[in-house]
């Protein structure tokens, strides 16, 4: 009997039936009041009306999802998308994605298909190259969970008009937006890590920098895309927030947002994957687009991500921050070492042009991580079993970086910084290993074994 039940559960037809029940249940518990729907339903608006709409009308705040029930579906993700009506080529592309990408898309699936137009987007992309479909799905997976993904009518304006809108943004809207941020969000921006000089930049209508002129990790983003805003990009009106002479609504303060650069890049990659550059002027098509949620417009989207990452109370998780930057730098050094025969004489010159900033950043991150791990070891909060993970990170990321630095003839004083970090980490690791052997915590010695490399 148990075996028969198991076989029945594993049969595709049975799994389909369960999935249909799950979807029906979700439909039953999802609010049907259109006022509470996440975004304006397609049938209520024409493309043109959508393009005309103000962003506040387009993005009605997402209702609380407390009533949603999370049920593990017995169907694979491609099967679920097929049930939603996704075209075959998209389903095939989904099957090709890595488990990590599929997991991220699975977390978005309900949100994506809650937009009726998402199927339109999929059908548009389904006729393109398989590579383009792969790029779009990867683009969706890369969107940070803090951002919403919506579908939106993209009505391409002519190049000359796009140029006019960009000029207006440069000359008027961008300075006005910075002054607006200063007037209305300066406390939030200061709390997010902006220095006083950066705030003074905003007050003058300039993008925020440190006193040395180094910019913060932010961009100003057009929520509805500048080149695809239809009448928002062609028919000027008075900005209800900034006032003044008429300007294109696409450049109004309500359509601008201060956004982290990496989030902006993810958004652009998703747009690029849908090949928006190929949209002819005057044409309208549906796009799948990442937008900051309504509650996080203005400056509040920045939060703590603007400043150095907070280091978690675990050695294994802390060293994670050093891995990415170390790997990129090591790869770049190895590549140069392989393609150009460097001598010690030109090693410093190549270092200055190719690695100096990235190297300084990487040393900075490693130093902070090392200080953090040392402090945890001193406090006795670093479990001895973490010695293994710390050693693995040293071996996999720091030691190869030291080797690559030697190979590219990096200046000795720079190399020494990495070696010193290695020594400090090794001291902690040795102390942890000894404590593990002794079965009790032990504080590290002042100086320990030298790092390999």
């Amino acid at each position, binding site marked *: 009997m148990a075996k028969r039940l198991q076989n029945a559960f594993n049969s595709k037809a049975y799994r389909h039936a369960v999935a249909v029940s799950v979807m029906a249940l979700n439909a039953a518990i999802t609010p049907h009041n259109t006022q509470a729907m996440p975004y304006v339903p397609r049938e209520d608006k024409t493309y043109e009306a959508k393009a005309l709409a103000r962003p506040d009308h387009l993005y009605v705040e997402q209702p609380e999802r407390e009533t949603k029930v999370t049920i593990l579906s017995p169907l694979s993700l491609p099967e679920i998308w097929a049930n939603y009506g996704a075209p075959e080529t998209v389903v095939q592309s989904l099957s090709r994605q890595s488990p990590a990408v599929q997991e991220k898309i699975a977390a978005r699936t309900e949100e994506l298909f809650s937009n009726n137009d998402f199927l339109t987007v999929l059908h548009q992309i389904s006729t393109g190259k398989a590579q383009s479909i792969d*790029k779009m799905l990867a683009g969706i997976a890369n969107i940070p969970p803090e951002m919403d993904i919506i579908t939106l009518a993209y009505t391409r304006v002519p*190049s000359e008009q*796009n*140029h006019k809108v*960009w*000029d207006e*943004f*440069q*000359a*008027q809207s*961008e*300075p*006005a937006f910075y002054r607006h941020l200063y007037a209305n969000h300066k406390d939030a921006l200061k709390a997010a890590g902006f*220095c006083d000089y*950066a705030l003074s*930049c905003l007050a*003058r*209508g*300039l*993008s925020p*920098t*440190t*006193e040395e*002129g*180094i*910019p*913060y*990790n932010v*961009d*100003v*983003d*057009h929520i509805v895309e*500048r*080149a695809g805003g239809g009448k928002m990009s062609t028919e000027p009106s008075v900005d209800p927030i900034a006032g003044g002479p008429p300007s294109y609504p696409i450049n109004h303060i309500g359509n601008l947002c201060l956004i982290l*650069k*990496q989030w902006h890049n993810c958004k*652009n990659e998703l747009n*690029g*994957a849908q*090949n928006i*550059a190929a949209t002819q002027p005057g044409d309208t098509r549906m796009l799948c687009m990442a937008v900051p949620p309504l509650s996080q417009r203005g400056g509040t989207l920045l939060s703590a991500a*603007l*400043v*150095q*990452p907070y280091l978690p109370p675990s050695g294994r998780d802390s060293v994670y921050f050093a891995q990415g930057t170390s790997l990129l730098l090591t790869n770049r050094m190895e*590549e*140069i070492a392989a*393609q*150009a025969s460097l001598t010690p004489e030109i090693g410093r*010159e*190549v270092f*200055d*042009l*190719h*690695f100096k*900033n*990235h190297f*300084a*950043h990487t040393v900075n*991150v490693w130093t902070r991580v090392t200080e953090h791990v040392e402090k945890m070891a001193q406090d006795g909060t670093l479990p001895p079993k973490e010695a293994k993970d710390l050693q693995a990170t040293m071996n996999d990321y720091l030691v190869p970086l030291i080797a690559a630095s030697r190979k590219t003839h990096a200046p000795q004083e720079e190399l020494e910084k990495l070696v010193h970090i290695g020594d400090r980490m090794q001291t902690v690791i040795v102390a942890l290993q000894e404590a593990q052997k002794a079965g009790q915590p032990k504080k590290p010695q002042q100086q320990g074994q030298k790092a390999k490399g």
Partner: protein
Amino acid sequence: MDMRQKIADALAALRGAAGKSYINDVQASEAALKVSNVLLTARGYPELPADYALFLSQAAGITGPYFTLLTMDALPLAGGALQQGVIEESEAFNAAADSDAPKVLVVGKMSGNARVIHQDGKYHVVDAATRDIFRSYDDIADFITDTVQQKDAAIRAAQ
């Protein structure tokens, strides 16, 4: 005018502008620039334009409120992040294009999702999404000087 001097004058204009920019004072040597071109060629990109190489030999990268001009290394951002270099930005820009399309060299960025590219012997400020051309310049010194003038005029008008 000698291009080296023209670039030096443009950098002086940037130093005297209303907003402060970070100008990387590293000076690229001939050997370092050769290595850069080896890397670019290996990825299917054209070599660095001669005037851009001259620029890098005076200042290896600029970030700030006016524009970003990239170097082969990363540039610092406040708070510990990094602005990636020429290769990474070019790869991101070309990622959306057809794989058989000629690769475009991205040397800089501007606000409003614009990129500074070098194509057909000129520098163009283009829309990163649509590739629409907003401005064009014969050399990098003209780009720096004109962009500073226009932005400072906008800031003055806003006050």
